[in-house]
């Protein structure tokens, strides 16, 4: 789960990481009021959960109330990579002497929280990682020891020279690690962490993702969520025990297991179709889940045909069949549905569905993919 810059900075403030005074605004008028309470010049920043705001024109420096309100007027409602700007962050501009990058991320290879620091702050770190990977210092943090101050100092002395700057930055890093662990982040970046002209170290931006697996112990995150319509569907699906990701193809898929679901999408592509979604109904055998799953597929107007690919392990084929029969009772299915059932209680499942006119049966994944693409063409 991603949160906005201003939300991340509120967390920073909770952990006593220095940030600029900030106002969050949703209207042009509020930006005017915010301007009055700050010292010019003032920065107006689009709050959208996607990178590249600056390049898209979502960040403006302003010196007068009028400029600030004009900037707000321009940015509010702006579309940035498919997301509409609804909130603005307004804060005082700072005189930047130096920008660096600091971040933490859960690292698969070292099985640790990885500290990343780079003298190349203020630019997209993914770019640096690709073009100049040697400019990013990476240190895996011992999860039992945590991040001691001396380690933070050691790292910063590789990118800064001044003792006071290093001490301030190290202090911030230790706090950011504490935040990272306590708040179950999967990513926490300050980019840029700036050294101002008067030798203060301040977090000028924030990028924080929470570990979705840890949401159960952070009820406070729900209030911070700002989902797009598609994401709302995904979250709702998760609450129903499904993994659903909407795509923009024509073949709706319902599969048990994430790996098999991806492989099914891939096969649709391989055979010339386009998958409309990723949908994993998971490991249990609850017929209700099948009904919910069917709803997502049928509610997607792009879907011209549906492929159900079940390899029964924990999931029992007869339970899936029962769920499908129930779903067909509850909703009108006007598009072709191809089904492939294998594994646990396959025979019983097929028997249950044998009289169902809505269904086209397939013997294998490949067979199912071919049939569903063919069926979609004829819709």
């Amino acid at each position, binding site marked *: 789960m991603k949160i906005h810059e201003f939300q991340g900075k509120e967390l920073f403030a909770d952990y006593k990481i220095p940030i600029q005074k900030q106002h969050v605004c949703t209207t042009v008028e509020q930006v005017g009021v915010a301007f009055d309470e700050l010292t010019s010049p003032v920065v107006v920043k689009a709050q959208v959960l996607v990178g590249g705001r600056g390049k898209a024109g979502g960040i403006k420096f302003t010196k007068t109330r009028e400029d600030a309100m004009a900037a707000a007027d321009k940015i509010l409602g702006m579309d940035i990579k498919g997301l509409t700007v609804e909130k603005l962050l307004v804060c005082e501009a700072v005189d930047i002497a130096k920008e660096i990058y600091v971040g933490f991320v859960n690292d698969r290879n070292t099985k640790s929280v990885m500290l990343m620091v780079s003298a190349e702050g203020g630019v997209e770190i993914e770019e640096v990682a690709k073009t100049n990977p040697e400019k990013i210092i990476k240190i895996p943090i011992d999860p039992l020891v945590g991040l001691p101050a001396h380690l933070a100092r050691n790292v910063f002395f590789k990118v800064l020279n001044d003792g006071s700057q290093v001490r301030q930055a190290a202090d911030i890093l230790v706090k950011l690690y504490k935040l990272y662990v306590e708040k179950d982040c999967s990513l926490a970046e300050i980019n840029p962490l700036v050294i101002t002209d008067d030798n203060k170290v301040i977090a000028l931006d924030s990028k924080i993702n929470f570990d979705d697996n840890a949401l159960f112990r952070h009820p406070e995150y729900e209030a911070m969520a700002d989902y797009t319509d598609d994401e709302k569907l995904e979250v709702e699906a998760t609450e129903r025990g499904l993994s659903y990701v909407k795509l923009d193809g024509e073949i709706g898929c319902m599969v048990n297991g994430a790996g098999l679901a*991806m492989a099914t999408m891939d096969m649709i592509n391989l055979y010339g179709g386009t998958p409309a979604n990723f949908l994993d109904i998971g490991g249990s055998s609850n017929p209700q889940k099948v009904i919910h799953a069917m709803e997502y597929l049928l509610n997607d107007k792009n879907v011209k045909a549906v492929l159900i690919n079940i390899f029964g392990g924990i999931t029992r084929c007869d339970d899936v069949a029962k769920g499908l029969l129930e779903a067909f009772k509850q909703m009108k299915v006007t598009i072709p549905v191809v089904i492939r059932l294998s594994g646990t209680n396959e025979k019983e499942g097929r028997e249950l569905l044998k009289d169902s006119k809505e269904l086209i049966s397939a013997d294998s994944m490949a067979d199912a993919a071919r049939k569903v693409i063919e069926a979609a063409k004829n819709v």
Partner: protein
Amino acid sequence: MSILINKNTKLVVQGITGRDGGFHASKMGAYGTNMVAGVSPGKEGTKVNGVPVFNTVENAVKATGANTSVIFVPAPFAADAIAEASEAGIKLVIAITEGIPTIDVIRVTPILERNGTKMIGPNCPGLISPGESMVGILPVTIFDKGNVGLISRSGTLTYEMVNQLKSHGIGQSTCVGIGGDPVIGLHYKELLTMFEADNDTDAIVLCGEIGGDAEEQAAAFIKENITKPVVAFIAGQSAPPGKRMGHAGALITSGSGTAAEKIKAFEAAGVKVAKEPAEMPVLIKKALGI
């Protein structure tokens, strides 16, 4: 032979009195897995399907000599259960539980290391050495004893692959579902090394998916260290970036972790990659010269 589990495996089931734990314990027992104990705090002295239950893994190990544990404990408590097994002297832990916070797994890792405990998972279907032992939630009927080792980040995709192999009469030495989470225990490298050393394994199937660069690393490792033929499959070629595809670990971030990169890495390392599951048995047969 086989890797990790066999007839000498003495299994303790953590969370045996839970719904999932109880169900799969009976399945494992029916397959012939040597289940010596269950753990459920407060239930010591009772039995589940004839398996004695203990309050703690420590008690279970002392009473039964259990050496392997399977975790069906709910996510909020699962990492603690893994640590408990490790501290009690268990040498192989199979963590089935899905949804464990990544930081919990990171924190338990050094504890596993210092106790010399290996972990499979979490968020995995477990593993099977057909004819000897199954630990986890695998549908045992599709597996046959044979000479192909299989490593997979996915559950049902593994079944699909095994089913494809079965349709061509190819059995398995051991099949390991390593789990779909970002941070997991044993990974490709360790398991490839075990299969390389296993006399009963003649070829290896590796089922990867999008996210991370473990497949790229495995490709480089195979080139340098593995002499047995390896055939790979990568799921998620059509997955969009920035979206978690079911598995917490199946996520293309900042354009890295794509299926295309992984396939390229394998091909560059001389590892054949199946385009679809049905191609897997064909490539394996070719690799085995049969």
